[in-house]
Structures are given as C-alpha cells and as structure tokens.
C-alpha cells in the first residue's frame, strides 16, 4: 500500500514538475517570433539572427530541462530511494 502511494506520488510529482515546460515553450516561441520579424526586416542577416536565436533558445530551455531532470529524478531515482527506506 505504502509502495503504491509512493509510486503514485512520484508519478504525479513528475507530471506536475513538467508544467515547467510551459515557460520555455512560451519564451522560445516569443524568441522565434522576434527572430522571424528581424529576418523579415533585414533578410540579409538571416544567418546571424538564426544562430543567435538558437543560442537564446538553448539557454531559455534550461529551466524546462531543470524541470525535466526533476521529473526524471522523481520517476527513476526517488521511488527506489523511498521504497528502500521502508
């Protein structure tokens, strides 16, 4: 019974932690939109804009990846930790 509760809590927690994926989604979408605007205004700077945008997206993705790591820890590591203690 306790096992089941722990597993369920971990899975729920992992799911909730992935709400953190919303932020990077919005942020990257905004960045890409702005990059498109910039390319539309000055098509000759396409290469530079694209590189900078990808860099910015990668950095903005970090928070999402943190939540992904938390989710992974909850799924793969936490149950073993807690269940081992029982």
């Amino acid at each position, binding site marked *: 019974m306790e096992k089941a509760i722990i597993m369920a809590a971990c899975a729920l927690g992992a799911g909730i932690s992935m709400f953190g994926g919303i932020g990077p989604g919005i942020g990257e979408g905004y960045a890409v939109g702005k990059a498109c605007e910039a390319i539309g205004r000055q098509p000759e700077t396409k290469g530079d804009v694209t590189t900078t945008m990808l860099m910015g997206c990668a950095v903005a993705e970090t928070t999402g990846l943190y939540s992904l*790591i938390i989710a*992974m*820890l909850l799924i*793969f*590591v936490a149950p*073993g930790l807690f269940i081992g203690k029982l």
Partner: protein
Amino acid sequence: MPETLEFLSVNIWSVLMAIGNLLILFLIVKKFLFKPVNDILEKRAEEVDHIYSDAEQMRSEAKANKNIYEEKLKNVKTETDLMIKAATERAENRSEEIIKEATLEAENRKRKAEADILLAKKKAVDDIKDNIVEMVIDLAQQVVEKEINEDVHENLIDDAIEKLGERV
C-alpha cells in the same frame, strides 16, 4: 536480462573517463588532423607569399629596367636634339653666309652697274656736249660769219655749254 545502470546516475569514474576520453580525442584530433592540415595551409600561404614576393621582385626589376630604358631613351632624345640643333645651326649659318654672299654680289653688281651707268651718262653727256659745241659753233659761224675767232671765243662757248650740260 543484462545488468544496466540506472537511467539517471552519476559515477565519478565514468565522469573522469569521459574527461579522459575528451582529452585523448583532443590530442588525437590535434595531432592527426589539425597539425598536418595547418602545416599544409601554412606552407601554402608561405608559397603564395613566395610567389607574391617573386612577382614583386620581378616587377621592381622590370620597373628598374624600364627606368634605365627611359633614361637611355631620354639620352637618345637629347643627343638627337643636339644633333638637330647643330645641324640647324650649321644650316642657318650656311644660309646666312649664302645670303650675305648673295647680297654682297648683288651690291657689287649694282655698284658696277651704277658705275657703268654713270660712265655711259658721262659719255653721252660728253658726246652731246661735243655735238652741241660743234652745232653752236656752226650756228655761230653762220650767224656771225667769220667775226668770231674760234680761239678767242672758245672759252666763252665752253662755259655756256658747260652750263647747258649741267642742265642736261
């Protein structure tokens, strides 16, 4: 079922191995790819530099040659100029001489002609004088008959004729 790692696990030895692998690969790539290719690129750049410097040298040589030739050409020009000048001078001198000679001769001829003319005039005047003297004497003889002595009156008549000759 083979033994596996946890999906999310940290093993310090594996981290160290990854670092070591990266460093070894760095050395491999440096030694086997970057060094030879950079060497080749450098060599090529050197060769291109060499070619350029050669070309530059050749160009400067050509420039020097050109300068020499231009100098020579200039010299030739001045020489010809001098020659032409000398020739013209000579020619001018010669022409002046010729002209001088010509004028001299012309003057001589003119003088001679004038002398001739004077001579002829004098002769003519003398002739006319003689004629007139004879004529006057004849006339006077006819007018005065034998009254006039030729010897006595000849001076008088000569004076008259002289005056007449001056008027002629």
